[in-house]
């Protein structure tokens, strides 16, 4: 038997990640400063870790209900109300998932029939396209532009919509660009969508990490409330990546459909993480605020550093990424990243890993200490000078 032939062609045809080879290289090198990993460098706040430990000590080691502890769903509802003025009923409008990632996966699976189109703005998180393909959808890519600050505009959205369009992925604050959509930006998108049969999957996992202003959810527009599946989680805001906990909110019919997949594929989300998350929502506002403040300082240092190195870098106002253009160096994104790693031992990720239109850009994260960031920027400046002079 040819085992490889047994693999579903849909899966076989998904290309391997463009980031993998750098990670393999890094593993064999010393003294590399990594600005490549998209997760907080902070450890989960102690009160949250302690709540997880305490739940284990008390012997809370069983399943929760499929949708998650009602106590946690109540806290999620209160949190969304407090932060974003959103109203969701804990009983039938919220499901607790294994990370926001599972939320994206089951939201797509709950909606998609083979051949349905899913609009995905790029550059963006690599999983959207993958999950859409797994659900046998046809991904329709919108190429976002730097001159729009990588925001989704009606001009870009409208031509992408066909009668087969079922879903729009709205990934803001954005990984990898750090772009955000403010209330006015969203309103223009709402105008396009309000009378169409399209569901928005709004991935707001970086919502707390918004600088110089507050994050606005598209679900806060009354006409969008039922048409939106809000995806969020604990990984980024509460530095809880390894706990694998997220949630999805939406119309009861959609949440019910998602619950069907979740209960057969997952059963329920890890309960230690759920106990910890209750504490996170109740008592961690100060910790979150302190982390956001710290990220904001680093963000400015990094943008300033890239600009001083002679690279164009638009001002990212969300998440913890910068997305400078490296076109000036005459190198491709891939060449830039590989040579920077070999010659200066700094790891950044090529923009092309997040979609073809990421060509000419790199992603660097400031989820790293000021010391590391400052040293990396010195090395990058040296590197850019070398290539600019050589040209």
């Amino acid at each position, binding site marked *: 038997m040819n085992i490889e032939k047994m693999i579903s062609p849909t899966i076989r045809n998904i290309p391997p*990640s463009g*980031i*993998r080879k750098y*990670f393999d290289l*890094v*593993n064999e090198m010393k003294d590399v400063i*990594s600005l*490549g*990993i*998209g*997760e907080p*460098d902070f*450890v989960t706040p102690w009160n949250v870790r302690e709540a997880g430990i305490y739940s284990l000590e008390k012997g809370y080691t069983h399943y929760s209900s499929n949708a998650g502890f009602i106590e946690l769903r109540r806290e999620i509802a209160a949190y969304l109300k407090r932060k974003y003025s959103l109203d969701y009923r804990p009983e039938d409008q919220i499901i607790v998932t294994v990370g926001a990632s599972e939320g994206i996966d089951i939201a797509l699976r709950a909606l998609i029939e083979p051949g349905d189109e899913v609009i995905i703005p790029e550059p963006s*998180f*690599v*999983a959207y396209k993958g999950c859409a393909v797994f659900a046998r959808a046809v991904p329709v890519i919108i190429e976002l532009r730097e001159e729009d600050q990588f925001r989704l505009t009606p001009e870009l959205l409208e031509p992408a919509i066909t009668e087969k369009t079922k879903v729009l992925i709205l990934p803001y604050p954005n*990984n990898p660009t750090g772009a955000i959509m403010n209330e006015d930006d969203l309103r223009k998108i709402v105008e396009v969508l309000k009378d169409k049969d399209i569901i928005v999957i709004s991935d707001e996992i970086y919502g707390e990490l918004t600088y110089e202003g507050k994050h606005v959810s598209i679900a806060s527009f009354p006409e969008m409330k039922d048409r939106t599946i809000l995806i969020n989680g604990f990984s980024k805001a509460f530095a809880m990546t390894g706990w694998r906990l997220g949630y999805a909110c939406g119309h009861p019919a959609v949440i019910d459909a998602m619950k069907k997949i979740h209960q057969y594929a997952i059963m329920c989300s890890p309960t230690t993480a759920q106990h910890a998350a209750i504490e996170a929502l109740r008592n961690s506002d100060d910790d979150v605020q302190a982390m956001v*403040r710290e990220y*904001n*300082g*680093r963000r*400015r*240092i990094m943008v*300033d550093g890239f600009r001083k190195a002679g690279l164009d870098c638009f001002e990212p106002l969300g998440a913890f990424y910068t997305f400078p253009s490296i076109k000036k160096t005459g190198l491709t994104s891939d060449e830039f990243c590989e040579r920077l790693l070999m010659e200066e031992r700094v790891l950044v990720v090529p923009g092309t890993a997040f979609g073809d239109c990421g060509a000419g850009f790199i992603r660097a994260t400031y989820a790293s200490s*000021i010391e590391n960031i*400052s040293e990396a920027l010195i090395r990058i400046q040296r590197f850019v000078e070398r290539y600019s002079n050589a040209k």
Partner: protein
Amino acid sequence: MEELLEILEKNSKLSEEQIAVMLGKSVEEIKSAIKKLEDEGVILGYTTLIDWEKTSKEPVTALIEVRVTPQRGEGFDKVAERIYRYPQVKACYLVSGGFDLMVVIEGKSMKEVALFVAEKLAPLESVVSTSTHFVLKKYKDKGVIFEKSRPDNREVIIL
């Protein structure tokens, strides 16, 4: 300027240029703000947190509970001053509860600290009694945990 103070309190090694960028201000603004805070005595100095245990010098720290008789018209301030003027005294607080002054003393040896208490502190007229607690191990000081710096154990992952 609270944010400026918080940044400096956490890491006074940052340059004025770095702080200016972090706060979105000009270097001049930061320089004059720091100068003002220093002049007003809000910023009293810049120190380094050292784990002396890891060096050949191993200073001894003791917490001393001091009971005193407050003096007429002076309260506790006068006697506190006579105590905190000694350079061996690293900290001195007036506290509520079963005693009055909490005095933190550092010396080269237990003997030196004990002698200081016996010869300088206890004989003071208004001191009623002292109780000395030697520090055996420091776990955390000034908000910093005394442990090896945590390595970055984030694994490479595609996202």
